């Protein structure tokens, strides 16, 4: 018996194995790139899986037009630096209808600009497999997710029609109209993501680091005023606060935390000692009970 290997090395190897299986089994895969820390790790693992070749698939970003400006800049720089194809898709009909996260409920907004947008993009380009950075530790309904998660025609996720997985055998043979979401980071935890970012010295969006930023306090949560589209309501005001983000999404729906962690090491230290799990900061999950599972059945991720 030799010494135990590092758990991150084991997780990395498993993810690489999954990337290679999917790339070998599917006709036209794509990597769903959402710019945050999980996507950063996902992309890094993809690059490792196919080194010295470039990953044999493009990146897809479904842009709601409400992402933080720093995220968009980071996205474009990442694609440029690594020489990867980047597809940016916006749900134009949804935008024309004026759907936005300030006037509409999170569930309507998410459905139109994210879920429908993603389905449009996958259909438009004919992708049969989409890599995502989802982890089983994120949320209760994801705890049962497969590595190859099958979607029926119309991208519907049916919990009862998921394929059993065994050992390291990954069955990616598609039936008529089926497509698949592939989750190479299924067995990673939030802490692993940070540990790995630190270990591999990966660049992340600066919003993860604390800085003085203009904020509005709403329903007990701190929102950042990233542009003029978010205005204080009566009784609210814009206050400069030192904040950072634990997750990144659409800025009016992403709560910040007050923090002094200005470098990655401090962020990770704070995260490791955190008292709340990360999705507390993501407002859509509080929308209704079993929210994430319902979104999945509708095709959100």
């Amino acid at each position: 018996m030799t010494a135990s290997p590092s758990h991150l090395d084991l997780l990395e190897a498993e993810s690489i194995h999954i990337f290679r299986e999917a790339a070998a089994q599917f006709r036209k895969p794509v990597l769903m790139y959402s710019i945050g820390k999980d996507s950063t790790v996902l992309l890094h693992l993809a690059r490792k899986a196919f080194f010295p070749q470039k990953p044999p698939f493009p990146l897809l970003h479904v842009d709601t037009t409400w992402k933080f400006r720093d995220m968009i800049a980071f996205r474009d720089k990442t694609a440029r630096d690594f020489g990867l194809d980047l597809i940016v898709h916006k749900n134009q009909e949804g935008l024309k209808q004026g759907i936005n996260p300030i006037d509409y409920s999170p569930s309507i907004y998410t459905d139109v600009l994210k879920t429908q947008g993603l389905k449009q993009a996958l259909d438009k380009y004919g992708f049969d497999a989409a890599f995502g950075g989802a982890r089983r530790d994120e949320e209760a309904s994801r705890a049962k997710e497969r590595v190859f998660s099958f979607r029926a025609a119309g991208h519907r996720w049916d919990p009862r029609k998921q394929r059993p997985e065994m050992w390291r055998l990954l069955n990616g043979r598609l039936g008529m109209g089926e497509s698949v979401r592939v989750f190479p980071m299924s067995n990673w935890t939030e802490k692993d993501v940070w540990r790995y970012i630190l270990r591999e010295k990966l660049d992340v969006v600066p919003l993860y680091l604390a800085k003085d930023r203009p904020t509005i306090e709403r329903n007990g949560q701190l929102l950042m005023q990233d542009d003029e589209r978010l205005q204080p309501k009566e009784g609210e005001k814009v206050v400069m606060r030192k904040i950072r983000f634990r997750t990144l999404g659409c800025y009016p729906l992403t709560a910040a935390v007050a923090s002094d962690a200005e470098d990655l090491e401090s962020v990770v230290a704070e995260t490791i000692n955190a008292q709340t799990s990360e999705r507390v900061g993501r407002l859509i999950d509080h929308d209704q009970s079993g929210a994430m599972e319902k979104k999945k059945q509708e095709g959100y991720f």
Partner: protein
Amino acid sequence: MTAQAALKTSTLHAATAASAPAALRDLNGIVHLLTCGSVDDGKSTLIGRLLWDASDLYEDQRENVRRSGRKAADSDLPDFSMLLDGLVAEREQGITIDIAWKYFDTETRRFVIIDSPGHEQYTRNMASGASFADVAILLVDARAGVKKQTKRHAAILDLVGVKRVVLAVNKMDLVGYSEDVFRKIEADFRTLCWKFGFWDATAIPLSAVYGDNVSTKSSAMPWYTGPHLLEHLEKAPSRGSAEGGTFRFPVQTVLRDGQDFRGLAGTISSGSVAVGDSVTDALSGRSAKVVRIATMNGDLKSATSGQAIALQLDVDIDVSRGAVLSTSEMRPVAAQTVEARLVWLSETAFDPRAGYLLRTVTDLVPISSFEIKALLDLETMSSHPSTKCGVNDIAVARISLGRSAAIDVFSEISETGTLMIVDAITGASMAGGVATADNAKSDAPGDGHFILTREMLANGLCRDLSLSANDREEFMRRANEAAILLRAAGVSVAIEPPPLVDDGMDPGL
């Protein structure tokens, strides 16, 4: 990033790791725990208790449990099982029908809990969950002891290759923490394990609700001198820490850099490989030398089981996805026929007229004939002739392939002996299983076996070994090695497993 830049990064990382606080360091390995038992045995409470006691739960998760006001059965303590809830439908039904994955860290180690349902109608779920497990926790109620269900569970664990089993004798508080009750159950458990290939089988008396022997030593059971559950689990070897083993490298895909690099990408499933080694393609018999082991972190001199790498060979021996590289002496069989034990996973029963494919780790092979020979009764381990097979059945099957595929006997080299039956039309995963015999000829495999008997091995090759857990592992390693050599030479061979660990207890035979 260039390879050089990547190397520089990893040097920087070494400096960081040395100065980083303990919490930021990598953990020592991962152990996957399968928990099986029924709701009544208090399984969710036990897992919840482990998470509550031993792990780094977030405060909002703890608060959720406290705030719910729900109480664990027969107590005033919080309902720890709430930490385990899953799909809405299941929550409403109050049962667990699917496998749920849960993660927790102790100071030095990552644990992955694979929670699977225990009832007979969920045999398939348990088998698929068990296939990922390093250690299985079999849960029984101290008032009921070892039941038929426990036997069925042990049989499934053995079938999918779990080597380490813990019998958690729960609800000891309800039998007055009685040593007699525990010893009786422990003896039954040993009798039960005798016929299986487990390396380690340990029984621990505990109370999940009160935390006795879960993550602290119980003061209520001074007669028990063994480890508490967490202590026992922390000693289990991590995945990827096994040394030695016969080299197997299933090729996943071929990588090119647009110039002269042609790398065979894959994960080493067993053994190790070094630059300069000669490797052989099992199907063609062609060999080549490894000239480079490439990763983005820089080239390696050698790599071992579990590592994902790309191998560059000195000559192009025309291998691609589906090939399995090995040494030339100990090659997997280029099988035309396979005898297998299958767990039928699909609601759709076996149909002799349907088209099926066989998936191995990286190959997908057409099946030319597929015959169910018998079904296994897991409670008695007896087999009954049958040509039919449906959901949750364990079947003995004979499969002929449309072309040769590199397949090992699962009990000798596990990963390259794993199989999945795929519906050719729908792509559905119909059954998962293990190869029990294979043959390069297209006629009957498994017939005319040469058997390496327990006695033959104990008196010869393994004469220096005792019956301790470590020696049992070594016994199997040597026996496997002998079988692989014989098989590579064309002899159809099987191994009789060694007796279970002798720790002075009456095996009950």
